[in-house]
């Protein structure tokens, strides 16, 4: 079983559209939406939920006002500035529990926190594991880890060849959680100075965690000079560019219709993604993952 995670560094480069297309192209796979705080893949795959599980993670401090004698020790020691006027500001509390341990009147308890849900669903392209992190919650990385673990379990149980994950933007906690131990990172970039800057950082993260990376340049024709520079940037780092996808409004039209681009149009975008998938699946069958 191979695990391919689609990342980008910069947001909005087309990760979800690509994953939607791969969902329609790959034969034997489970899909995972690892962008747990702004998940969009379900809008293309239109899943029917089969199983819903609560995600309990982390704790939040609560002060019992009847027991609190307002000594202020908790406020003084909290490094997250989460206690003000003897009240816990929940969005700032990181659940470390220092206040609970030090409170001389034992007025502070740590309450379990329900941070979201994760789901196993059916789609016409195969099973999908996805999640919804509660608004303003912590621990997105842990929820991503659960999604990946469940997706791998489904793949093993059903003897599927691939786990294909839609990753979050950025390079921090949820990205690291989506990436570590994967067989391949497919990095979707765009030929803008921001895209190039962000690609460099996400390539660094792949290197840091020893995951082989390959690059797809989306909307390559909005700036062909930047596309050439991106290709050079990749070749200097011995990273393959597996696709150059042109800008086409058909991609947005397919999102509005709620279907993967490869089922909506047989234009250049589709042809390029089909070729890309052949390359990726051929390559990953030929070599063993790191």
């Amino acid at each position, binding site marked *: 079983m191979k695990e391919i995670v689609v990342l980008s560094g910069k947001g909005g480069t087309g990760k979800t559209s690509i994953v939607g297309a791969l969902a329609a192209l790959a034969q034997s796979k489970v899909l995972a939406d690892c962008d747990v705080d702004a998940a969009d893949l379900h809008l293309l795959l239109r899943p029917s939920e089969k199983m819903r599980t609560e995600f309990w993670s982390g704790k939040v401090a609560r002060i019992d006002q009847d027991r609190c004698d307002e000594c202020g020790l908790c406020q003084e020691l909290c490094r997250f500035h989460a206690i003000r006027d003897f009240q816990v500001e929940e969005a700032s509390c990181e659940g470390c529990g220092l206040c609970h341990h030090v409170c001389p009147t034992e007025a502070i308890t740590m309450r379990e926190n329900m941070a979201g849900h994760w789901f196993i669903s059916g789609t016409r392209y195969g099973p999908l594991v996805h999640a919804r992190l509660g608004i*303003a919650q912590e621990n997105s990385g842990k929820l991503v880890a659960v999604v990946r673990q469940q997706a791998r379990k489904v793949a093993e149980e059903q003897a599927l060849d691939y786990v294909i994950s839609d990753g979050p933007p950025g390079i921090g906690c949820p990205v690291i959680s989506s990436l570590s131990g994967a067989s391949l990172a497919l990095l979707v970039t765009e030929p803008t100075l921001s895209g190039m800057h962000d690609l460099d950082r996400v390539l660094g993260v792949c290197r840091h965690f020893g995951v082989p990376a390959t690059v797809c340049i989306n909307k390559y024709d909005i700036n062909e000079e930047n596309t050439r520079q991106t290709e050079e940037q990749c070749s200097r780092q011995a990273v393959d560019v597996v696709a150059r996808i042109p800008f086409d409004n058909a991609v947005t039209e397919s999102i509005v219709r709620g279907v993967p681009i490869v089922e909506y149009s047989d234009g250049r975008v589709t042809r390029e993604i089909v070729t890309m998938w052949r390359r990726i699946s051929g390559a990953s069958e030929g070599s063993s993952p790191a």
Partner: protein
Amino acid sequence: MRISIASGKGGTGKTLVATSLALALSDRHHVQLLDCDVEEPNDHVFLRPEITGRETVTIPVPKVNEEKCTHCRKCAEVCAYNAIAVLGNRVLTFPQLCHGCGACSYLCPEKAITEVGHEIGTVEWGRFGGVAFVHGRLTVGEAMAPPVIRKVKERVNNYDIAIVDVPPGTSCPVVEAIKGSDFCILVTEPTPFGLNDLALAVETVQELAVPCGVVLNRAGIGDSRVVDYCSENSIPVLLTIPLDLEIARLYSRGIALVAGMPQWKSSFLELFDMVTELVVERNRSAKR
């Protein structure tokens, strides 16, 4: 006044709005631009500010004095993040998991734990024309953005306007960046992805009790559902930017919209006036 620029979905145009708003206002006001998207900061690409100062961001991680340690396991019991473990007569620490809360060192009965700085990023500041600039940069391979964001925000000055560029998403780094804002501009695009993530972003700012309005970018693609959503939920659409190849090309070359197409400046000034009016109105009704 502090205005944050957020979106939920990535790549909708936060950076475009933040940089152009800052530049448009810089003729008339003291403006500070703080890029809190510390995982992928891009405002500097458009402003090319002269960097005049730099600070390393560290979080305090435990260092155990083996001579004083009695292996009582108190530290491992109190650590909420499994960042310290006692195995037999050895204490192992995991700086990447540590949140720097200080519980282990404060609660160690032998006072055997001190804290040392573990570097997770840098904050840089400088200036471009009339814009005072600050951004943070999470070190590649590090997981925790919020402490770097907090360091960027510590540099919010008493300029009359501070503009905060927020990372995408709805979780802790976003909350950290938006907190303390007088107003949040949500940038979106008229697609089902844009709408889905806009609704999540609206929930996030409501949770933080920060008023919001929408900038609709790439208008002309997609459908009308974002506009319908805004009117149903009484969220003002403050500015509409069309899908335009010239705007996309300027963006690709790292040129701020108001620098490449100065005719847009008045639109950003109007955007600011609308935001000011909404904030004043809200403060007035809050006092009543």
